[in-house]
């Protein structure tokens, strides 16, 4: 289940940061490679790993992409103590990484379906692993629609994939929106849930995958229900404060489920059975 | 003391005519020696209120939960508790206009926590002590210092002993002896933070011990982190502690916290005083360490 450098699931292996890309003023994409070369472990889309700037702290992040056996990518937003320090490091810095944790996206069950990806802000990072997986196995999936919104144009992540690489893929539509009008932006303006209702994508044979701030997820879930999506057709990936990553320290629970172990991916049917505390 | 009837009448009156939205008082728990905090919001609930010999809790601490709201609150306070209300008012934690303070003149109460522990079977005792709580034995403030309505006859001061006697003893110890004394005392702290939660003067929205940027004091129960926790907390209490004794009462490992607090009360009184925190409410008053004066003593620096 996990192949870190030592048998202890709470002890990280050492990786090296080989590339850092500035996605937005507060999001950086870190490429890491195991000290021995290659990836420290294999991940499926949607899985998580605990990244540690060892003298400072640990944080659980979704793996934004695994490039074959070359490296792992983590898109990390600067929000707190650890991420603040992390944004100051340079290429060559050694970090601790342990994982993979979590259940990942149900890629097998989604094969043959049309995919609707809805993301807000940094929420695109976990979905990106699934989106790129779909593109890698393009013929296994039907039509792909990506709806992404952010506070402003500068806050849009993965701009070159968003505007160039992805729209060029077969049978793929990318819709981008920002919250408020601004100079130099002639794309759509408006919040993601509203844009979603505007686009009104057909629920038939479609799986909707959502990630973003909790408030955005909640509104989108309501919109999708209005548009006729069944509970099993809607998947989301959630986030909570995590420390151990292995379902033991207790804090990331929603009801009796631990996000780090039973999640972070849940479909709406499962989520409705749990207390609304996330 | 037993003012159950009087308090029930006052509570019913206040709730009925809409003067308040809630009355913070006490009710009985499962055992006759267990009285616990209780909030009555309707006239029906008033029948559960008691104000008896086990009503030791400093209810002013519960006001913090409602500091951001708009409810009108009636609260029953004894002498020591009322100083807690002055603390909150001086710290701008709650508006005076929202409070209807029912003061009770107290002739001492017993500690239901001590009674619960003695009857629990977890202690080896021959006969349960049934006297007044430790903090009541040398009470200097039996009568509320602030109130809108007063219940009971004014009580005489009970405490004639020198409350700083033990402090003086410790001050006489050599530095080594003192270190060992405090090491013994604080090494058993399990860092449960109950003292902080029970304290009415601990009312920061984000407590220094919960800050992460930076983390001021580590969370280990090592002697150095334990010392830091207690010394920093005590320093933040200097000139603000109202001596209600709740911190010491709730400590699950019986650390005599009032020793540390009293030392600082003595020092503030000597250096910046005479000064006793929370003895009277005058709008605009601040504790001595919250105000800088050019002639503040500094020879202890």
């Amino acid at each position, binding site marked *: 289940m996990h192949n870190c450098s030592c*048998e202890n*699931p709470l002890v990280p292996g050492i990786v090296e940061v080989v590339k850092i890309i500035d996605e937005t003023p507060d999001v950086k994409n870190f490429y890491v490679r195991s000290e021995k070369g290659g990836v420290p472990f294999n991940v499926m889309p949607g899985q998580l790993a605990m990244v540690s700037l060892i003298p400072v702290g640990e944080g659980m992040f979704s793996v934004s992409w695994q490039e074959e056996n070359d490296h792992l990518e983590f898109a990390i937003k600067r929000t707190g103590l650890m991420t603040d320090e992390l944004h100051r*490091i340079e290429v060559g810095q050694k970090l601790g990484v342990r994982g993979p944790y979590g259940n990942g996206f149900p890629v097998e069950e989604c094969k043959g379906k049309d995919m609707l990806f809805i993301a807000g802000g940094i929420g695109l990072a976990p979905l990106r692993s699934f989106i790129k997986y779909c593109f890698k196995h393009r013929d296994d999936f039907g039509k792909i629609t990506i709806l992404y919104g952010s506070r402003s144009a500068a806050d849009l992540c993965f701009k070159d994939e968003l505007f160039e690489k992805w729209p060029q893929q077969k049978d793929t539509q990318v819709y981008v929106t920002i919250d408020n009008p601004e100079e130099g932006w002639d794309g759509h303006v408006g919040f993601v849930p509203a844009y979603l209702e505007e686009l009104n994508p057909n629920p038939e044979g479609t799986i909707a995958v959502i990630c973003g701030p909790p408030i955005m997820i909640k509104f989108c879930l309501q919109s999708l229900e209005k548009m006729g999506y069944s509970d099993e057709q809607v998947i989301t990936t959630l986030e909570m404060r995590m420390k151990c990553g292995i379902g*033991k320290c*207790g804090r990331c629970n929603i009801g009796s489920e631990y996000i780090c172990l039973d999640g972070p991916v849940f479909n709406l049917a499962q989520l409705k059975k749990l207390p609304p505390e996330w | 003391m037993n003012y159950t009837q009087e308090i029930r009448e006052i509570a019913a009156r206040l709730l009925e005519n809409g003067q308040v939205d809630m009355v913070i008082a006490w009710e009985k728990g499962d055992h006759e020696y267990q009285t616990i905090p209780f909030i009555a919001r309707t006239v029906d609930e008033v029948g559960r209120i008691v104000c008896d010999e086990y009503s030791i809790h400093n209810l002013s601490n519960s006001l913090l939960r409602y500091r951001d709201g708009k409810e009108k609150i009636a609260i029953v306070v004894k002498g020591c508790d009322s100083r807690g209300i002055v603390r909150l008012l001086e710290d701008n934690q709650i508006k005076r206009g929202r409070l209807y303070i029912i003061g009770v003149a107290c002739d001492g109460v017993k500690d239901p926590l001590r009674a619960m522990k003695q009857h629990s079977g*977890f202690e080896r005792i021959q006969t349960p002590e049934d006297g007044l709580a430790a903090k009541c034995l040398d009470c200097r403030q039996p009568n509320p210092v602030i109130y809108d309505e007063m219940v009971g006859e004014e009580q005489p001061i009970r405490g004639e002993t020198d409350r700083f006697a033990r402090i003086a003893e410790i001050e006489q110890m050599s530095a080594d002896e003192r270190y060992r004394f405090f090491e013994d005392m604080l090494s*058993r702290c399990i860092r449960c*933070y109950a003292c902080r939660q029970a304290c009415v003067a601990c009312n920061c929205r984000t407590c220094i011990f919960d800050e992460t940027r930076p983390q001021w004091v580590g969370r280990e129960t090592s002697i150095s982190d334990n010392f830091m926790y207690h010394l920093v907390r005590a320093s933040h209490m200097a000139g603000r502690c109202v001596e209600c004794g709740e911190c010491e009462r*709730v400590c699950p490992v019986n650390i005599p916290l009032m020793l540390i607090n009293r030392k600082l009360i003595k020092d503030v009184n000597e250096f910046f005083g005479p000064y006793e925190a929370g003895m009277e409410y005058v709008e605009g008053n601040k504790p001595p360490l919250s105000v800088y004066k050019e002639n503040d003593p500094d020879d202890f620096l």
Partner: protein
Amino acid sequence: MKVLKMSKIEQVLDRLAQQADVYVPMLRGQQTGFFSWNTYDEGYDDLMFDILNVYQSPKHVILPQTEKMYSFSQEGQEIKIDVEAEEMTPKIIMGIRSCDVRGIEHLDDVFLTKGYVDQFYKARRDKTTIIANACYNPGTNCFCESMGVNPTDSEAADIIMREVNGGYVWDVKTEKGEAVTKQIEDLLEEQEVELFPLKPFLRKVNYEGVAEKLKDMFEDPMWEKFSEPCQTCGICTYLCPTCYCFDIQVKAWGDEGYRFRCWDSCMYREYTQMAGGHNPREAAKERFRNRFLHKLQFFTERYGRPLCTGCGRCIVVCPGGVSIIKIIDTVKEAETGA
């Protein structure tokens, strides 16, 4: 039956302490808990096998309040990790009551099952032998029987001591128990003695169906009412024999440091505080509700048995008088289908 005479207890402890760290219930100064026999101070401490139970449960023997995990050192961008491989001395917990043994069983469920085995916990647990002390006199706030615990028979115990006149019957249950017994065989005597009867419980609850009922009671007004006196001080979580939530933190100075884990409490606001500012359980009522649901519903759903063992400690020490018995009673009496 093998019997350990009262007069020989200290000899047994001395003998066992030669090969293990023996934790026994003691009164030390103002607190009661399980302390190591090696630290026993004749003039200061008091052995307490006869007491109903002690305040601090022995969970700290296998899940210490603070536990170093690994140390590290930095040099420029390089970093080295060293996992703490302390030589684990065998441990014996002697005189532990059934309620606390059940607590350890629950800790075993959490740390040793469901996907990952916590290596730090396992290292301690494997080397720990449990010598339980059968309980025949339930106390004022004891309700272990109602929570499915047998006060006179603990499942996970390696040896069970049963109090009789003048001593204890030494009831060996497992191989681990046999190994420990071999060390003190000569101090036991063969004797036929009569066991004490179990006295009736003063407090009972009916837990049957409560976990199921709680599924529909998430928004019930009872949580608001019950959480009012709660100060979220966390004493309950520290003394509870089954509370296991922990935090992982780091201590660093200059280029070195170590990562450790320490007890944490779900009652604190910071427990679920996220870096971006969002907190799913901001209010005291939400944390209060989560704690009791965890004890009475979530844990039962996940591991099959409730996390509360009926030891009564939280009821005794809560400054606000919160009682889990009252909560279970309220759920039991609530109208279903609300």
